[in-house]
């Protein structure tokens, strides 16, 4: 016993230390990573964001240097607050508030004190910066817009929020990320990879040189440039045409699905969202709840499509074999069912398909629609078959384009009608849904969806998923899904009479007033009733002016949908705008200067002010 006590204790302490060291070094070795190490400071070097070009190589957006004042709260030493606030041009209260927020976020990680200084502010501040421990200036790359249009396409970048930081460890407080439009969709391509420098510090937090001579440091990698499918000239022209109107224009290249123009109105100058005035400007745009300049009407707006929808009814009638092109229907100033009438305007009667399209006869399409639904044993099956035909045109669901916003629109299902008519207690027939025949009723489409089905008609039976990316300059190529044909449920041969009908619309029908010399266009006007609520009461407003078209008739180069809120009849605004856009794109110059002058000078602001005037007002005048 006396011989082994000391040996025992020695061995025991050996075991104890082994256990302790194992716990510290292997089991609980948490502060191992470089970024967590208190002796290593991590500095980032931000790369230039990739540029954006239009389809013709015109530069849309590049970069400018910007400087953020950053703080690491735990390193802040007592300072001359008054002098510092003077340099930053903020009040002492604001400064305290910012510092408090930074400390709450993290005492160890950097937070932004003042974002996006310009070169002049930076110059005056940088030479005094040494006085303020814990503060430093971080150089970043900011956007510099070369154009004043296409804000809705390009989107914008903004500081990351905590939700993004939690999800994606790449981002740190104060860094910028694409938050809308192409900037958001192609963030990974445009962003590049930030460089990182590890600096060894001593216990007084002084830099004592690069960590391990910089073997872990990386250089920033510049983001890739991208070329968009939009045509800057067309974008600019479209935006000018839409001044003082609300709505949008979507133009596609039917042969590829490339988006030639994507214009929403009203819009804003993208440069407003750069620099120190950014948050003030953003707030102003955000709170404009009447004009909604940040709201992309062509992707997010769900509207009743009106008469352009009739082309689809005709196609489905042919596809379902319930009508031939020769079948003519009489119009009695409208379509009579039961003791009700769905009204129509005056035109020759009876009409076959081509005439029906050219004159936009409501009665004709009500008859065709009824035959389609009634072909099936029950209206439920009829509606679902009709719906499935429509969905093959990319309607009623997200289209799958490469922009981060959108809506499904609405192509009603049988379930939807069963619910509103309380089936099976109450039965319903095809007549209960008859408004669908003329693009009113429950059907809702986004302008983008209207442009897409127009492109499908232009192609006589197929479309490509619309997309904004033309080329990623660098190792990446554009996603494969944009080069796959989507065939509609309707056969190619059935498209010819409808195309001919749309050509007649332009030749002698509802859009004959917008004829442009030398351009064989196919189109369809639309005049959609719409309602709003004022003080809880449903009030009808002036009709939406709608026009879809493609040109030339053979081998189409452009398919377009134009939507002007409360613009009254189809050819009044939308038709004219579509005509001008097509001429601009195909010919590069405008011959119908009379039409251009009318559109450029015309304003609908008075119309938009009506519902908010508090006075009784008349519509459709």
């Amino acid at each position: 016993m006396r011989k082994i006590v000391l040996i025992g204790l020695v061995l025991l302490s050996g075991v104890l230390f082994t256990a302790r060291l194992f716990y510290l070094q292997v089991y609980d070795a948490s502060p191992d990573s470089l970024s967590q190490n208190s002796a290593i400071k991590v500095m980032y070097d931000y790369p230039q964001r990739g540029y954006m070009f239009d389809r013709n190589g015109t530069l849309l957006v590049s970069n400018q240097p910007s400087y953020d004042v950053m703080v690491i709260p735990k390193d802040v030493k007592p300072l001359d607050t008054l002098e510092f606030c003077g340099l930053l041009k903020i009040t002492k209260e604001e400064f305290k508030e910012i510092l408090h927020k930074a400390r709450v976020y993290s005492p160890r990680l950097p937070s932004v004190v003042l974002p996006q200084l310009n070169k002049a502010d930076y110059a005056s501040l940088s030479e005094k910066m040494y006085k303020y421990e814990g503060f430093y200036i971080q150089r970043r790359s900011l956007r510099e817009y070369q154009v004043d249009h296409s804000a809705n396409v390009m989107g914008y970048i903004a500081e990351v929020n905590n939700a993004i930081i939690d999800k994606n460890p790449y981002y740190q407080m104060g860094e910028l990320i694409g938050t809308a439009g192409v900037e958001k969709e192609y963030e990974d391509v445009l962003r590049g990879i930030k460089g990182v420098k590890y600096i060894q510090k001593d216990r007084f937090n002084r830099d004592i040189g690069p960590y391990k001579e910089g073997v872990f440091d990386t250089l920033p990698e510049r983001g890739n440039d991208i070329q968009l499918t939009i045509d800057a000239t067309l974008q600019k022209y479209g935006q000018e045409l839409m001044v003082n109107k609300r709505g949008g224009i979507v133009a596609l290249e039917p042969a590829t699905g490339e988006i030639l123009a994507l214009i929403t109105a009203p819009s804003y100058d993208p440069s407003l969202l750069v620099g120190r005035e950014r948050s003030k400007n953003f707030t102003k745009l955000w709170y404009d709840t009447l004009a909604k300049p940040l709201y992309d009407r062509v992707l997010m707006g769900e509207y009743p499509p009106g008469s352009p929808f009739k082309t689809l009814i005709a196609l489905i009638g042919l596809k379902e074999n319930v009508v031939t092109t020769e079948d003519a229907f009489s119009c009695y100033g409208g379509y009579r069912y039961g003791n009700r009438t769905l009204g129509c305007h005056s035109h020759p009667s009876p009409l076959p398909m081509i005439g029906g399209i050219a004159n936009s006869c409501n009665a004709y399409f009500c008859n065709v629609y009824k035959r389609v639904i009634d072909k099936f044993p029950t209206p439920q099956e009829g509606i679902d078959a009709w719906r499935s035909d429509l969905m093959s045109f990319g309607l009623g669901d997200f289209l799958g384009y490469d922009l981060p916003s959108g809506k499904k629109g609405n192509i009603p299902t049988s379930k939807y009608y069963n619910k509103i008519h309380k089936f099976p207690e109450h039965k319903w027939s095809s007549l209960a849904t008859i408004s669908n025949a003329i693009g009113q009723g429950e059907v809702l489409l986004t302008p983008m969806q209207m442009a897409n089905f127009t492109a499908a008609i232009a192609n006589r039976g197929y479309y490509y998923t619309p997309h904004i990316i033309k080329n990623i300059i660098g190792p990446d190529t554009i996603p494969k899904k944009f080069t796959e044909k989507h065939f509609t449920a309707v056969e190619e041969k059935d498209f010819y009479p409808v195309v001919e009908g749309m050509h007649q619309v332009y030749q002698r029908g509802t859009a004959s007033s917008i004829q442009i010399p030398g351009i064989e266009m196919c189109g369809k006007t639309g005049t959609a009733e719409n309602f709003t609520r004022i003080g809880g009461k449903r009030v009808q407003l002036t009709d939406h002016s709608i026009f879809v078209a493609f040109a030339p008739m053979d081998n189409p180069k452009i398919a377009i949908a134009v939507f002007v809120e409360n613009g009254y009849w189809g050819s009044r605004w939308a038709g004219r705008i579509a005509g001008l856009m097509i001429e601009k794109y195909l010919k590069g110059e405008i011959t119908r200067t009379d039409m251009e002058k009318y559109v450029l000078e015309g304003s609908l602001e008075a119309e938009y002010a009506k519902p908010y005037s508090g006075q009784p007002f008349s519509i459709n005048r």
Partner: protein
Amino acid sequence: MIGNKNFVRFDWLIIFLYIALVVIGWMNIYSASLSDSAKGFFDFEQIYARQFLFICLSVVLIIFLLAIESKFYERFASVFYIVSLISLLGLFVFGENINGATSWYSFGPFGLQPSEFAKAATALALAKYVSDIQTDMKEFKNQLVAFLILALPALFIIPQPDPGSALIYAAFVFPLYREGLHGVYLLLGLFATVLFVSTLAFGAVGVAIGVLLLAGIMFYRNRKKRPNFIKYLLIAIGCIAFAFSVSFIFNNVFDQRHRDRFNIVLGKEVDARGIGYNTNQSEIAISNGGWLGKGWTQGTQTKGNFVPEQHTDYIFSTVGEEWGFLGSMIVVLLFVGLIVRIIFRAEKQKTQFGRVYGYSVAAILFLHFFVNIGMVTGIFPTVGIPLPFFSYGGSALWGFTILLFIFIKLDGANYHHG
């Protein structure tokens, strides 16, 4: 005198372990004290260069120690002891105050710390007294004298103040126990330590409740043997009185810094930037090592000088950071191997003098090793004592070298005569 025969009889395993520890120790001091301002390797402003010089002088010292006739150490033990007591007392008159402790004689740029040498002298004196024919460790009078021999230098060291170095004299209980001191002294010491720590952790009242409960249970379990109730009560009261006096001493006699050191280990107050800074930084440095460490001179915490006193008392944190779990284990095994080997050789001694001395060496090295690494890894309160052969410092290195090589010489003579 240095016959070939004698020379090869030394225990080469112990010498190898000594060399390994000194070399590894120096490499870590080099890393911990590396700075850009060095003017070449032989710039004696640099800590590592000075330690290199100390090591070279140790070699000279070793040759001396091994050359001297082994009987000399036994014969002059009392003289060494008295000289070292005088040198400790002399500090009160001629000592140099460094870092708040008057533990040094200063000679120009170098200082000498007599407490480091007093350990070897005390070990010799104790070995001589215990091995005397007339000494019987079972007699109370002899126990008292032995305690006096080891307590005197400790008493002189405490007021320097250097309670850490004084604490080491407790190590002599182990050789005395080996020579027949009643085990009750060890148990009493252990029990007192447990009570002491529990009092700090749970408070005197908590300990009182615990002791009463324990006594009640023991009494109940032994009730068939008709236990003496008065005896149980007296022991319980004794324990409780001890707990309350510990509490009183801790709160009224100790300095705040002593209290803090205990409280940190007991997890009562965690203040990473204040008093717990040393231990906390040392633990971070060690944790950073992982399995294999960051590599020699690559430790970030070491380079940033985050661990205070890293080249002296906290040198093991450099081992932890730069050599990882693997390197730390090798150092721990080297120490355990060295101490076990010394005990093994001590048992083989033909003379009681050699055995007592060998046990004293093992016990002193063990206590240093246990307290130092316990402190650096955060399982023992901060007690400023060096890690033998590792920590920077001439006095410490020479003190331990003398302590160890006297035993190697005694052991070698043992071979010779056997």
